[in-house]
Every structure is written in structure tokens, then in C-alpha cells.
């Protein structure tokens, strides 16, 4: 908590605003459904009601309240963002530690695999995997993690390679310390700040990827996610010649853009605060 306050104080204005923004998104995601008067799934008014006091962001083509859908989408986006980042962050760090500590064939093999994963454009492959495994939150998280573990793994590996020649680590080893002891006692505390920054970025990547996948119609078609609202709005025939885009298209777009932007600013400040270079 103290660290967080320090971080908050050291942040730039944009970073502070961003943190408020993310706090707001969190709040909306957790309490959103209680927060909005209407359901995100059941039509509550006629179609295309412009924003008013009853419907803060208006309604969509089925007459479903858009604010409620944005709240519901925040839940989905954050869940996918955070869990995919957690999964890839944790798995990636441990893979990186093992590679860095032992080296040898396993290290070479894993690093070449990660080279391949970095070189392949991930969106087309994610589309293929999305189709293959089918729609569903778990699958999207899994697919995202498969493509995102390489970042944390490389960071952890290079850190461990430099750490294992440090004197205190060598001394610990000479007293018989194994990889588990070293990992928890010496490696993790050093790696944590760096991986933290990469974690924040992975959250962003998760949110954008989920939006793109559901925008392309690969998510659960009846779920409420930002990407899917965008998808429905854009496939509405002649949307640009009607007034509907002003609320139907703009609100999910703003939600995605603001969230992603805010997280980026936080990542930038975190980098400075934790004094790490990626």
C-alpha cells in the first residue's frame, strides 16, 4: 500500500488520471450490473433511443441499454486481460528462470520456440486457434497466454543469467541452495518489478486481442463484449448514414481506447518508478 502511494505520487499527471480511469473501469466492472438500471441482455426500450437520462448511452438495434452492455463488457475485458496476463506472466517467469539458470539444450529449445512465436504474427494464428478451440472465455485466455509468455520469459531469463554470477547467489549455491530456494529468495524479488511492467502491458494486449477476436465474430455471439458491440454496430447496414453510430459505435470504441490508453500510461510510469528498462 505504501509502495502504491509512493508510485501514485511519483506518477505524471497523465498517469494519475489513468489510474483514476482504471479504478473507474474496475468499479464499473465489479459493480456495473448493480450500477445500471437496465439489463445488458434484455431489451428495455425501443430500438435506437438516443442517449438520455433513462439510457445514459442510448440503446442498440434490439433496444438493449448500451451503458449496461459497456459495464458487462468491462467485466469481460478486464477478466480476460488480467487472467491472460497473470497466466502468461507466471508461466513465462518460471520458464525464463529455468532456462536462465540451467541453460543448455532446454534453454536453446525454449528460446527458439519463443523466437518463432515472436516472429509469427499472432492475430491470424489466434483466429485459427479461436476457431479450433471454439468460443469461450477460458479458451481466449489460454490462446492469449500461449502467445504472450515469451515476453516475461525472456526478461526473467536474462535477469537470471546476470544474477547467477552475482556473489551472493554463488555463496548461497555453495551452501547448497537449490533452484527453488534461489528462485524465491533471490530471483523473484529481482525479477518482480520488471515482470510487473510487462504484466501491465500484457493486460493491454489481452484486452485489445479479445476485442479484435470478438470483433471478428469469434467470441460467443450472444456475450456482451466491447469488441462484439463494435462488430454489431459496424455490420449494421448503412450505419454511417444514420445517427445511430454516434452512440452505438462511439461508446464501445471510446471504452476500448480510453482503457488501453490509460493502461499504457500506467505502464510507462511504472517503468520509471521501478527503474527498469525493457
Amino acid at each position, binding site marked *: 500500500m505504501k509502495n502504491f502511494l509512493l508510485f501514485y505520487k511519483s506518477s505524471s499527471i497523465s498517469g494519475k488520471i489513468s489510474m483514476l480511469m482504471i479504478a473507474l473501469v474496475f468499479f464499473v466492472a465489479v459493480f456495473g450490473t448493480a450500477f445500471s438500471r437496465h439489463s445488458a*441482455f434484455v*431489451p428495455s426500450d425501443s430500438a435506437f433511443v438516443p442517449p438520455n437520462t433513462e439510457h445514459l448511452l442510448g440503446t442498440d438495434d434490439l433496444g438493449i441499454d448500451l451503458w449496461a452492455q459497456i459495464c458487462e463488457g468491462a467485466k469481460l475485458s478486464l477478466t480476460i486481460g488480467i487472467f491472460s496476463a497473470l497466466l502468461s506472466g507466471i508461466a513465462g517467469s518460471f520458464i525464463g528462470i529455468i532456462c536462465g539458470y540451467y541453460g543448455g539444450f532446454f534453454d536453446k529449445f525454449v528460446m527458439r520456440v519463443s523466437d518463432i512465436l515472436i516472429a509469427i504474427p499472432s492475430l491470424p494464428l489466434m483466429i485459427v486457434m479461436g476457431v479450433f478451440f471454439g468460443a469461450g472465455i477460458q479458451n481466449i485466455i489460454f490462446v492469449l497466454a500461449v502467445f504472450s509468455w515469451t515476453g516475461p520469459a525472456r526478461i526473467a531469463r536474462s535477469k537470471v543469467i546476470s544474477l547467477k554470477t552475482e556473489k551472493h547467489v554463488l555463496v548461497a549455491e555453495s551452501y547448497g541452495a537449490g533452484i527453488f530456494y534461489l528462485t524465491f529468495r533471490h530471483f523473484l524479488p529481482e525479477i518482480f518489478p520488471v515482470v510487473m511492467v510487462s504484466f501491465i502491458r500484457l493486460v493491454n494486449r489481452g484486452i485489445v486481442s479479445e476485442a479484435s477476436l470478438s470483433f471478428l465474430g469469434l467470441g460467443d455471439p450472444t456475450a456482451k463484449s466491447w469488441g462484439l458491440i*463494435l*462488430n454489431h454496430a459496424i455490420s449494421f447496414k*448503412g450505419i454511417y448514414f444514420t445517427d445511430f453510430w454516434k452512440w452505438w459505435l462511439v461508446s464501445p470504441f471510446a471504452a476500448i481506447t480510453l482503457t*488501453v*490508453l490509460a493502461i499504457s500510461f500506467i505502464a510507462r510510469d511504472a517503468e520509471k518508478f521501478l527503474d527498469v528498462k525493457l
Partner: protein
Amino acid sequence: MRNLGKKILLPILALSMLLSLSACGSKTGDTGDQESKSPVESSQANNDREEPLVITLSGGDCGYPSPYLHYSRGPGSFKMRLVFDSLLEHGEEGLIPWLAEDYNISEDGLTYTFKIREGVKWHDGEEMSPEDVLFSFEYQTANPPVGGISTALGKENNIITDMTIDGNNFIVTLSQKSAAMLNNLGSVRIIPKHIWENVENPKEFTDEVCGIGCGPYMITEYNKEQGTYKFEAFKDYWGQNQEVDVIQFVPVSDGILAFDSGEIDLTGITPDVYEKYAHSDEYKIINNPGFWGYKMGFNLEKAPALQDINVRKAIAYAINRTDLIDKVARGAAILPGEGYIPQQSVWYNKNVKAYEFDPEKAKDLLDGKTYDFKLTISSSNDEVRMAELIKLNLADVGINITVESVDSKTRDSMYKNGEYQLILNGYGGWGGDPELLLSQYAYGAIPGYSNEQINKLCDEQLLETDQAKRMKIVYELQNVIADEVPQLPLYNTTGMSVYRPAKYDGWTYMFDHHETTHPKISYLAEK
């Protein structure tokens, strides 16, 4: 300072990711330099007629326009029909003689004589002969083309006993009368014998010559990946002049945007943008007849609970179809006939029973029981939205729906193979000859469903060649179907199309079809 620049880069990157994301979603092909003439220029082109008249329409891959290679949906088969003619053609009012100059049905209704037109040339310059006609029938009976070939009565009972040529006459003899046979015989595509006679496996015959027909247009360019086509008028065509010299199909992401910028010459519009085009002489709006529709298919084998007629009726009562029309079709649709035949068809029975939206009645019919079904849909926006509403409607009466969305080609093959419980399917051709009731309802057309009375009436109406008597049977058939609900028609779309009359004003409709870009006669001089 350099560091700052790097960090500002990140949000910009994030933004550009978003932008590239939307670029992925819209299929923008290289349509940039194609036909973006202003209306003024193009009307001049029309007046002088020095430049060829090029009509550009919204494309998408529908397979190669050959009888064995095109996709089975409307946009695929009509492109093939531009290239391949048949004995009769569908006109605005009814069947018109085409490759057959004249035809004659014997009094007993068993012998059909078609007088084959002379001087018809194939696209490769060879002369078409009655031999080719006979060959086409024999070859396609042995190797059914994409849409199948209807020479049977009932399901498998082939009633053609003999096909022969006598001079310029092509004579078909039947073992039984059939009301739909003229249309069926008249629709068979005529293919050149000199190209096809040695082809063993037509579905794998992809040589370019498989696109040689004797129709008014030749296929000159086709790109499967981009979904582009180019059809050019066939100079030596026997008949009516082609008004349009080149018909081309280009991929567009948003039809109305593309029409507005002049990339394409005709597009379907919704009532939301009607006002934009309604009050200008530059545009003309035509209404499509309601012969295209959505239905919900029931699979009684995969979902045995549907064998209970009350469950099917409950679904019919529980789904608010008026709401679907208002919201999904934006009002541009009409309620379907419960007996499948759409309201605008001449065969429609006005007194057929109607299932009005009545959740209470549905609940009564279900008697407190709950059911779980899986609904298969294609990932098109309309169907996804429809599924959302249907799911809510049915949940209200105690039927839980799990929606499974697949791409449309997968959905089509799942439908064909009966791999579904409930399925949404939208297609055209609802306004055709009532023979279609046979392929829709009778003899196991609906998996796990069989009804003696429907089978019998379907056969009877086909055997009856007296129009008035046949009408009566078809009316009764609709009553039985409405009562049984073996599948549920949802709505028939009555969309609008808009075009610029200054460029081309020849658009028309076939008497039984919903689309104006599909009929061959839309592109020819005399209608």
C-alpha cells in the same frame, strides 16, 4: 526528449492496433480505381454508347460459374445462369421460350416437345445442336449438378421414360403427369457435348472450358480469393441484345457506402436510409418481392423432444416474429405464411392458420415442462441478433437455447447433413412452384419427421395439371403444414434496392424471385 518520444509511441501504437483491427474486419479489396465515375460522367457514357456500359455490383466468392462448381446459393447459381442458358427462361410474368423456340405438351400431359432454336453458338464458336440438348439431359441426370435436377415425382421415382431428338425437336416422354415438369425441364442448363462428353467426374473438372456455355455473357475473369468476377457480353449471342456490356463483381465492405461513392451501381438498402435516396431524381428505389425468408429448422432425430407437436407449436407461439421483423429486418419484412408459401405468392392461402405471439399459450402447451435445445446459426449479424431475441423469447416460456454460431458455409453443410437440433437458415426461392413443398416437407425432408397426409398431398398437387384444382390441393396442404409446424418460417424479407437510373434503368424481377440483380432479363434489351 528521445525517451519521451518512445513513450508517447506506446499509446499511438495501441491506437493504431485498434485501427488496423477495424481494417481487418472490413474486407476492403482493391476497389479503389474501379468505376468510381461521378453520375454525370456515367450518364454521358450511357447517352453516347461509345464506351461500353459496365455495371459493377457487390461481389464475394460464389464459386466458378459452371453447373458443377458454383455455390448452391442464389448469388452462385444466377452467375452460372448468365453463362448457361436453358430451354425456358423465367420472365416477369412466367416462363418464356428461350433455347426452345416453342414447346408443346400433349393432351394426356405425358409428352413434352421442345423445338430447339437454330443458329445458337457456344462461346467457343461451335454451333449448338439438339444433340447437345439431349446430351445435357442425359449427362446431368447421371451426374446431378449443384442444384440437383428434378425429373422425379415424389422422392426418387424418376418419371421420365424416354428422351429423344427428332430433327429440331427434343421430345420427353413421362410415365405420369406432373405439374412442375415443364418448369423442371425448362430449367436444365444446356452444356456443350464436345466439351463434357469425355468428362468422367464433372465435380473435379476445373479446366477453364467448363465455363463455356451459350448464354448471353462469358466469364472472362474470376478471382476466388478476392471474390471478383467479370462477365462480358457474348458477341454472337442468338437472341436479345445485351444492354449491359460488362457485368463485374467487386468486393465491398459496406454496400451503401460503396454505392454512395459510385463503386457499385446497385445496392440493397434498409428503411433507415430510405429517406436519403427517396426524394432525388438521381436515384430510383425498387421493392423486392418477399420471396426470400428465414426459417427455423427442427431436427426431430437429434432433438426427440420436438416430436411432440405441442413443443413445436409452443415455439411458434413463443417467438415474437413481429419483433424480429421490426428489430432485425428494421421493418423491411412481412410475416411468413404459416404453410410456408409466402404471402406474396399466387399460391398463398389467405385463410391459413396463424400463430400470433402468445407466450401464455406457449406455456400452456408446454405444461410446465422445460426443454434445452441447441440453436445453430451462421455468424452473420442478422442471425446473431435474431438468435439473441429468440433465446430471450423462448427462455420466457421455459425453453433454454444454447446458441452455436458457425460460418455460413459450415451452417449450410450442417443443415444439409442434419447435424443440428434447431437451425436458422435464410435463403431465396420461396416464391417458386409449390413443388418446393415436396422438397421442404415430404418424404423425410425434415429429419425424423414424416406425415402421411403431407406426403400424399404433395404428390397429388404435383400430379394435378389443372391449375384451379391444383390450387385447391396446395391450399389444403398449407393448412396441414400450418397445423403440424414441422419447421417454422420466421419472416420473408421485402427489402429495397436503389440504383442510378441515369446509368442503367433496366432492372427487373423474375415472377418468382426476390432479387433484381439475379435475372438474366435484367441485363438484356427486351424484357
